[in-house]
């Protein structure tokens, strides 16, 4: 099942079973969504529950906050995370704070969905991974999904939650076909161990997880390095328990993410592991991440600016050689 279809399925399920669920966003209705995630839902549930909005990001999230305060369960779509920067007031000053400031009296059962990431030559303003900005805000839940199974379950879970959730998707995953089966008792706050291994714990999420899996395969075959691949579905809070458990076994940590290295999510994960498991480490934690530049248009430069399976492979080998792997 395509990633986008899994999201669609989750949205449809929610719309079908809870009349308080509404969708809103630019082009989500009649047009079916810029990435076709909401296709067919407008026809089925009508313009009152699948709402086309003007290009007004701050007001999209803002009105969704208001709807949620009154007991609706809005799922707002921001066309891409780049544009969510126009809604930062609502996302940072409002969504995470209202419940706290009201002493727990206000409920915000609200989801804001958006895709992010580097696709292909979309230029600096359309090619960003911004999860770390959101994941640093207490009061938000930041969830994401790397395949069809997680897309369906995590999104549905997010809609069921009575707290505000920011749900991240990756532009390059929409068209990917994944095996799909609905699971019982899915817990998005548990990181998934997608591959077991002895030598290195590699933490990743969204599209990078797939690059890491590919690199791990090569590492195993060509270098005999066995990677344990952890896929995070929740970026706030992060399931450190699973990460610690794995690092205690492998004694080595690598974090792979697409955003620029500085102050990215990997900085937090490596810092925590260094704090908690210093004496268990046989090598300094390694971050494999984007370069410190806006993403350029030229394809060659673009690929230089972000991690690729080849880079993940090469950097782990190099780092391993330096640090006794």
């Amino acid at each position, binding site marked *: 099942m395509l990633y986008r279809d899994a999201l669609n399925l989750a949205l449809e399920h929610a719309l079908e079973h809870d009349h308080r669920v509404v969708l809103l966003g630019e082009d989500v209705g009649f047009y079916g969504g810029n990435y076709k995630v909401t296709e067919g839902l407008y026809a089925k549930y009508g313009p009152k529950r699948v709402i086309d909005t003007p290009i007004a990001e701050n007001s999209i999230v803002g009105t969704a906050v208001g709807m949620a305060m009154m007991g609706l369960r809005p799922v707002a779509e921001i066309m891409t995370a780049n544009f969510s920067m126009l809604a930062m007031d609502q996302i940072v000053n409002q969504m995470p704070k209202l419940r706290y400031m009201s002493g727990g009296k206000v409920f915000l059962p609200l989801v804001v969905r958006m895709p992010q990431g580097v696709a292909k030559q979309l230029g600096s303003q359309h090619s960003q991974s911004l999860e770390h900005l959101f994941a640093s805000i207490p009061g938000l839940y930041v969830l994401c999904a790397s395949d069809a199974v997680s897309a369906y379950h995590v999104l549905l879970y997010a809609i069921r939650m009575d707290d505000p959730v920011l749900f991240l998707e990756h532009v390059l995953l929409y068209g990917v076909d994944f095996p799909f089966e609905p699971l019982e008792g899915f817990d998005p706050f548990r990181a998934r161990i997608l591959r077991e291994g002895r030598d290195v714990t590699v933490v990743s999420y969204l599209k990078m997880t797939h690059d890491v899996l590919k690199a791990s395969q090569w590492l195993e075959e060509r270098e005999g390095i066995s990677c344990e691949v952890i896929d995070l579905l929740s970026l706030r809070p992060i399931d450190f328990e699973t990460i610690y458990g794995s690092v205690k076994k492998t004694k080595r940590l690598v974090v792979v993410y697409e955003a620029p290295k500085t102050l990215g999510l990997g900085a937090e994960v490596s810092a925590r592991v260094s704090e908690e498991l210093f004496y268990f480490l046989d090598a300094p934690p390694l971050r494999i991440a984007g370069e410190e530049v*806006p993403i350029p*248009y030229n394809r060659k430069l673009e690929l*230089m600016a972000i991690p690729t399976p080849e880079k993940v492979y090469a950097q782990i080998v190099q780092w391993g050689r330096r640090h006794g792997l």
Partner: protein
Amino acid sequence: MSFLHEVVFYTLTMSQTLAEKFYYLMKLGREFELRCKEEYLKGNISGFLHLAIGQEAVHVGAVVGFGKGDLFCPYREHVLALARGIEPKLIMAEMFGKVTGVSRGKGGSMHLYEPRLDFYGGNAIVAAHIPHAVGAGYARKLMGEKAGILCILGDGATNNGTFFESLNIASLWEVPVLFLCENNQYAIGTHVSRSSYLKDLFLKARDYMPSVQVDGMDVFEVYRAVIKAKEYIEEYGKPYFIEALTYRFEGHSMADKGDYRSPREIEMFKRRDPLELLLKRSLKEGWLTEEQVRLIDKKVERLVEESVEFAKNSPEPSEEELYSDLYCGVCSDVIP
């Protein structure tokens, strides 16, 4: 002003040179973009490619009419850049991601910049460039310059808070900006009637500044309106708003088929293809001869061909380019 203005304007605009100029630029825009489409499908151009086919009269009429002054545009800016005089080959090379491109291969279709020609780019964030234009206008005025700023924006952008904020500030601060809204009736797949409470977009600005609506398929009409607006903002140093009614014949970008519009609707607008309207009228009125048209077509064809050759043969950026241009690393030597 008005009578005299009409007379002057009449002799001016109806001149043959003007028709020739319009035809050349619009034809160049049309052919250039059709070629972009072709190169995109060949894989030489990537990313988002927004074509202005159908909207050339607005772009050419506005830029030619405005003359000197800074230009701030959204991402659908190839024709605007061509009309401003940026060489086609530099634009094409940019879209090919080559280092010879106007933005050294780092910007792509949506981000053409040429400050030497007062061209301040295409911006990929809807409405983000509108306050830039207001700030730029303020700066020009403060520095005692007269030319004013031309800010092109889409119908979709007029629903954004930034737009209203900018209108307010521009009027409050008395900034010489011409806001030109190219109403092609759609923001991606959403028709203007489904996203805007006011259906006539020029009404949104009318309480702040002079605001008019023109036929954006008629290059002369756009030109005339822009000339008038330019005179106003130069004379009074205040903003002005024009809504030009137009239509895009292609999808929103190459990723969009545009099939949310009925074939009848598209057909209806294509019957008013701005390029054909101009050509027919010019031939009929004798502003252009068949021979002239043939020569222009030839020239355009050659230019477009050359631009693709140039782009193809240009080098890729070197690896150092990844980190160059991030900071300029210079300090002002004025402040002690």
